[in-house]
């Protein structure tokens, strides 16, 4: 288990991804980034991630569908949805699928880092509970 969370950024806007990666790096968060859900699935299959930042509107497959698949195949990974807008119905949908939370774009970097850290914390707590249950 790493000392800092391992994050994957999934967003179709390249500049958004690359600058976010830099902003997270100066806060000692190691973040990889991809531009589509398809690339995200292959990244997740090959590497361990703690938290995924997933944009809700992407070409080919939207964030909500991707969320469903990620949680089905990797229930332990925490997913934060980034959205231009969310309604109560969208929030319910995200919760139902197991998303950690949603964040409204644009979002202050400090808030984002706070959510990443609490999502990671939840992952650790849940992971520990599973270990305790199995022992």
């Amino acid at each position, binding site marked *: 288990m790493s000392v800092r969370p391992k994050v994957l950024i999934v967003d179709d*806007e390249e*500049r*958004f991804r690359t*600058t*976010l990666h*830099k*902003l997270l790096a*100066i806060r000692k968060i190691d973040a990889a980034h991809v531009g589509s859900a398809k690339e995200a699935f292959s990244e997740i299959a090959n590497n361990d991630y703690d938290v995924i930042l997933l944009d809700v*509107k992407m070409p080919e497959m939207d964030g909500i569908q991707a969320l469903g698949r990620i949680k089905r195949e990797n229930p332990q990974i925490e997913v934060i949805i980034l959205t*231009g*807008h969310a*309604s109560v*119905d969208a929030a319910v949908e995200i919760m139902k699928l197991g998303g950690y939370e949603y964040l*409204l*774009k*644009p*979002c*202050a*970097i400090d808030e984002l880092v706070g959510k990443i850290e609490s999502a990671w914390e939840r992952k650790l707590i849940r992971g520990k509970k599973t270990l305790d249950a199995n022992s």
Partner: protein
Amino acid sequence: MPKILPSDPSRIYILVVPLAILLLAVPLWIYSGLGPALAALVVAALCFFVISSLVRKVVKAQEQERLLDLQLIQSQKLAAIGELSAGIAHEINNPLAIIAQEVEWARHQLQAEKPEGKSFAELKDSLDEITRQVDRCSEVTHRILDFARKRDPLVQSTEINKLVEDMAKLVEKEVSHAGICVIRQYENDLPPALTDPPLLRQVVLNLLNNAADSVGQNGTISLETRIPDKGKIEIEISDTGCGIPKEDLNRIFDPFFTTKPPGKGTGLGLSLCHSIIIRLGGTITVQSEQGKGSAFTVRLPLDYNSHKSG
């Protein structure tokens, strides 16, 4: 006491049949005697009352339909504008997010250099201003997206008088300092309505807020509830404020239309009220005179489920 004669003079044709029968009374009297003549008179009178009452019913139904048609057109207009602006707002949020991040990164670069001098201070100040304006933009986009979102009513039994009074108390506390008095006239035996309480609360609160804003200082806000028709409830919120200019009246429910100075209100309040009321199966209308005041009337079905439009 209903009106005897219809108000529209062109409806004088209603008198044709009764008059014809009346005229028959004369020859009948001459040829058949008083009895049949009187009978003809009675028939003429009955004819008149029956026909005029039927005509009144038809006219009323036509007026109601016209009103519903107008509300439908307005709500379609709102939905179209709402969808368009939601699309724009969504598109704008992405570049805004990128701008916000670039500013953050630029700020970090400045701090890393630890520069001194007037230019750097100016640079930092500019970056702060950009952040402020990005926040301002994002407030607008979020408000637009909020306005455009679907609000499916969740139906619960609601005491309308209580709901209106609760909102009145909230407003009264704030406006009493400005010399505005709040008058209530609630219908005593208002049955419980089946509608969506928080959605209705939003409408009442918005209308009260507008009333308070238009009065400003020293005036009255009145709240009334009544039963206008079987199966319907009416809530009227009126004020003695500045009123709405005649030329603005048919735009008052349009999104982004506002008579307030820039920065004070996005003009979404009334259009939000309109779309909520339409969703609840009702109508909202306004009467206003510049300089005298305005009255907004919300009419709702007593039972949302029985009036749910397809």
